[in-house]
């Protein structure tokens, strides 16, 4: 990680249809080479934040600077968006929306084609990316023939092939079986080791523990960061995690131990853990 700032958000807010608040007055700095995990429950605005960082949504208010350029209007300015998408890649939560071409090869080649690369370079880049992710055998398959884990890998390949400096990932391990999940986490860790900036939106604590160099916690009512810091501090703060709806009081995690006790009660109560 170095001190170069990749993204700088100042007072960024976003509302859907001017009614449903997704982000409220967010200030956030993301530095090159870090693996930043945006940790928050459903509806806290994580996915919206990623789409704003990728220039797909224009903030309702506030300012967004990427690589030293003001990109607040990137969603309405095709040239600015084009410039941004060469440097930032977004892996969507739902791989089906990202795999829209007839075959895996076509899907992975889609981005480079839009960037206007020469044909030979595209074929080479697609082959290399598929090989790196161990999915060369899927090249001629149609997306509907893929398993959930394979779809996630292909979705990641569609972004990696463009060699972006920053990769934004929305719930990357959602709906994956344990093996596919472990393979994907290892792959992301390797990308981070190679110097890519990762911004991962998730509500899964073990994913944050495995990958984060820094964690920002989003509040479900606040729709903005309510805490930030290194993983060892954030993930051991039970009060914060309970308040942010990231663990439940009666079924949660203490390092390697899952603490669980199911019971009926008619009043809220607190308890201590040793």
């Amino acid at each position: 990680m170095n001190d170069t700032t990749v993204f700088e958000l100042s007072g960024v807010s976003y509302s859907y249809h001017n009614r449903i608040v997704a982000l409220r007055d967010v200030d956030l700095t993301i530095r090159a080479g870090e693996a930043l995990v945006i940790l928050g429950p459903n509806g806290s605005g994580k996915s919206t934040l990623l789409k704003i960082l990728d220039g797909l949504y224009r903030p309702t208010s506030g300012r967004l600077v990427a690589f030293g350029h003001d990109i607040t209007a990137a969603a309405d300015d095709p040239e600015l968006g084009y410039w941004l998408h060469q440097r930032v890649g977004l892996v969507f939560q739902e791989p089906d929306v990202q795999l829209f071409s007839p075959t895996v090869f076509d899907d992975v080649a889609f981005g480079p084609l839009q960037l206007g690369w020469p044909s030979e370079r595209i074929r080479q880049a697609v082959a290399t990316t598929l090989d790196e992710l161990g999915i060369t055998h899927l090249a001629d398959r149609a997306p509907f023939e893929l398993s959930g884990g394979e779809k996630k890998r292909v979705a990641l390949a569609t972004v990696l092939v463009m060699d972006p400096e920053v990769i934004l990932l929305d719930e990357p391990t959602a709906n994956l079986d344990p093996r596919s999940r472990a393979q994907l986490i290892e792959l992301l860790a390797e990308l981070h080791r190679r110097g890519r900036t990762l911004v991962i939106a998730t509500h899964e604590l073990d994913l944050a523990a495995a990958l984060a160099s820094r964690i920002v916690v989003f509040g479900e009512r606040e729709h903005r960061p309510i805490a930030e810091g290194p993983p060892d501090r954030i993930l051991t703060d039970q009060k914060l995690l309970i308040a942010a709806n990231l663990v439940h009081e009666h079924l949660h995690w203490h390092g390697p131990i899952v603490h669980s006790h199911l019971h009926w009660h008619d009043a809220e109560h607190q308890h201590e853990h040793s």
Partner: protein
Amino acid sequence: MPRRNFVEKTLLDLAGAVEHSVYAEELARRSGLLQRIDPRVKVVVLGFAILVAASLRSWPTQVALLTLLVVLLVASRIPPGAIARLLFGLPLFTLVVAAPALILVPGPELLRLPFGLSVTTTGAWSVLTLLLRVTASLAAASALVLTTRWADLLAALRAFRVPLVFVLVLAMAYRYVFVLLELLQDLLLARRSRLLRRDENTEQRRWLSSALGVLFQRSLRTSEQVYLAMAARGYRGEPRTLRNPSLAETDWLALSLGSAAFAALWLVDLARL
């Protein structure tokens, strides 16, 4: 096993369509004769075969054309069951449509029927000609569709300068129909798992209309997300494609031999008249 209602039957048929599509892709991946030929060549040669099928007038040349197409299907490892369905299943619909011509076309009597009606020789020949034409055209179209992967077929259309937007819409419609069908099936199963009695047709229709509403909303949301996913990878409203590589020698050979064979049949047919 409870009797299936009309909603379930429709959805099972849709699921069958998906299975058929997957099966067709599997056939297109087999190492048969036509599978080895460039899709562009197949579009030209088999398109020409359909034209020839529509033009032939004598039954020997029509039978010869049909035989040639069946040989191509067999050499392309299309299962005999699929070929039999093609030859004897679909043309039956043509027979139903064409049947009145057996009686209505004037000519020498072939078979006397009750009520003073009779099948004429001219009528029988015209129905037979139509049947052979339809069957041969279906065989040629099937030879193209069953031995060519959907993606390759679309690429071939692009090579023939079919507008890219048209091809993209076709590709995406084919892609997302599976996603939406999966959702529709999930909706059906979720409802069925909560059914405790046999439901009435009115309830089924009401449910189906609300399910279609859900499906419509979902397709709108999906289309927005797909557009964002395209924009995130640099899409600016202009479809782009990798240029198709040039044809191999075997493709040129297939193009020449295929076109020559079908053209020869046409010439023989013309000479017989």
